[in-house]
């Protein structure tokens, strides 16, 4: 395999990792602050993608679609938090899992009622559609590169939000001690709604960006959700930094596994067998990574002692 191919795949892995981070960040924030496991996070990703595709189709502007994805997913997040999630904070994890599983059924089927079962297509904006030439004549998809940059900026923004702003201080206080921040006079209910909405908006944003690479369809959020779970198991639940490390690790390992394993098995098998074994095993690679990390660090790479 050539170095350019390898480099291209590395960038693909990074792009995938950045998208995963946008998902995982919301999940891990919601868990860290409210102690809630939210299976319906993938549905917010889907809502973002559909909102973007619908608005882009209606207005012809991808950018308006992107704004719509954030607004729609954030707004859906507020509603879901206020009507359902709020009742689950004091429940055990089993209830949380079931209620949010029910939400998935409702949101997926609801989406199917509105948009039908056929996938929608979303095109990247014109000037990002082609490749860009990086150093040494190396070409790479401008759109994917943009995702990496935007995702990096969002990660940085989130870091600044959590460490530098008043809201971030409250969020961190909420992680440490609910009573304490109540005593400080912060309205917990509002804080929780805001945190949930931020997570939802990030998921919707991720869904919209990925919608231009994959197709926009019902259920598109679920594989990403499960990978985001793997990410936060690896990174350590509740830790944004862990989510970032875990996302990049999962994105890169998954992508590289897919391209390198068949070649690896081809060294001692015929091509057809190597391709099938390689494909089957590479689909397992990140789970093996998770298992190995669990054996050595059951609390995840960045342990929060939570």
């Amino acid at each position, binding site marked *: 395999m050539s170095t350019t191919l390898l480099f291209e795949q590395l960038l693909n892995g990074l792009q995938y990792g950045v998208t995963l981070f946008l998902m995982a960040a919301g999940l891990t924030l919601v*868990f860290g602050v409210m102690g809630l*496991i939210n299976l319906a996070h993938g549905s917010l990703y889907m809502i973002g993608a559909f909102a973007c595709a619908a608005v882009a189709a209606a207005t012809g502007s991808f950018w308006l679609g992107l704004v719509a994805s954030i607004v729609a997913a954030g707004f859906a997040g507020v509603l879901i938090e206020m009507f*359902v999630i709020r*009742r689950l904070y004091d429940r055990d*994890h*089993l*209830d949380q*899992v*079931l*209620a949010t*599983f*029910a*939400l*998935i*059924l*409702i949101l*997926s*089927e*609801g989406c*199917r*009622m509105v948009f039908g079962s056929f996938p929608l297509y979303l095109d990247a904006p014109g000037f990002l559609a082609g490749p860009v030439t990086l150093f040494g004549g190396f070409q790479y998809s401008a759109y994917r590169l943009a995702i990496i940059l935007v995702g990096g900026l969002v990660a940085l923004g989130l870091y600044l939000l959590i460490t530098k702003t008043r809201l971030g201080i409250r969020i961190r206080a909420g992680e440490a001690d609910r009573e304490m921040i109540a005593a400080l006079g912060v309205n917990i209910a509002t804080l929780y709604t805001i945190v949930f909405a931020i997570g939802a908006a990030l998921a919707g944003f991720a869904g919209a960006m990925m919608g231009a690479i994959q197709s926009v369809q019902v259920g598109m959020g*679920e594989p990403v959700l*499960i990978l985001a*779970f*793997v990410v*936060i*198991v690896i990174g350590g*639940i509740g830790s944004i930094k862990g989510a970032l490390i875990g996302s990049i690790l999962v994105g890169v390992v998954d992508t590289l596994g897919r391209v390198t394993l068949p070649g690896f098995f081809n060294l001692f098998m015929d091509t057809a067998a190597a391709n*099938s074994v390689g*494909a*089957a095993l*590479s*689909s*397992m690679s990140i*789970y093996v990574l*998770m*298992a190995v990390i*669990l*054996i050595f660090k*059951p609390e995840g790479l960045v342990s929060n002692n939570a």
Partner: protein
Amino acid sequence: MPNLSRETFLNIIISLGLLVFPFIATAMDEPFYITLATRVAILSLAAVGLNLALGTGGLVSFGHAAFFGIGGYAMGILASHAQTYTPIFTWPFVIEGTNQMLIIWLVAIVMSGIAALFIGLLSLRTSGVYFIMITLAFAQMIYYFMISWPTYGGEDGLSIYVRNQFPGVNTLDPSSFFYICLALMFAGLGLSAMIKNSRFGAALQAARQNEERLAATGIRPFNIKLTAFVISGMITGLAGALMADLNRFVSPTMLSWHMSGEIMVLVILGGVGRLYGPVVGALIFIIFEFIFGGMTEFWQFYLGLVLLGVVLFARGGAIGLLAGKARHD
């Protein structure tokens, strides 16, 4: 026994109803109902498996589709090789396919038990949300593995043309196959009732309620939970083999996380930790699917609403509503 509890009474009614159901369906000239009832029995068995881990042991596994699917594939792989008269492998020794249910069940139970052992060994090192996410992730790993492994149909799955055989029974007759499944469901219920009342069951319930106390008593919670997880996986695996036999088809869908969610929903709809919770849950689920599925293609939307309602407002499940709070001694 004077004074049967309402729950026991309900259980007896349900059992009798299932036992005579093929006669009713035949009398109504609705043979398809027997297939529905067979699904109830099989899904109940799958949920009985999960209920042992979840209800008795408090292990919130969101990955039981792994065992259900492995049971399904055990059936699919063995039967497909029997169908084409090709051995499964020839080295280091020859293993042939088979269409004998008894052997298929055994293989399904052993294979899902091995999978549960590995998944349990890793995931039981953690607890709470980690455990939920890790069981989900490992089930998903097996799902993707079966999708990308082309030998047994990959994404399309495997079809089996003839139902497998059971000594002395015409399995092609829907009623006969129903009674096989029902007998296994009762066996599963009996086994889980026995386990719950045994020494092991006492330790398992203690592990759910107070691990610290169990350990201080000299019993290692990890081993108890792992054993329960393995038995639980085996029961669900057996149900998977039956479901594949009923459909004469197995595909990665059986391994998907929706399946895990569905099995869990069965347990909850009926009532967690109740002996007949899984049966009641499966009954409700199948009836719901039959009625609403006939009216709208979006029936799962309504299932979601009902489930949300049950979780938020009726935590004891259906048995809780009908028979009151669970009794303990």
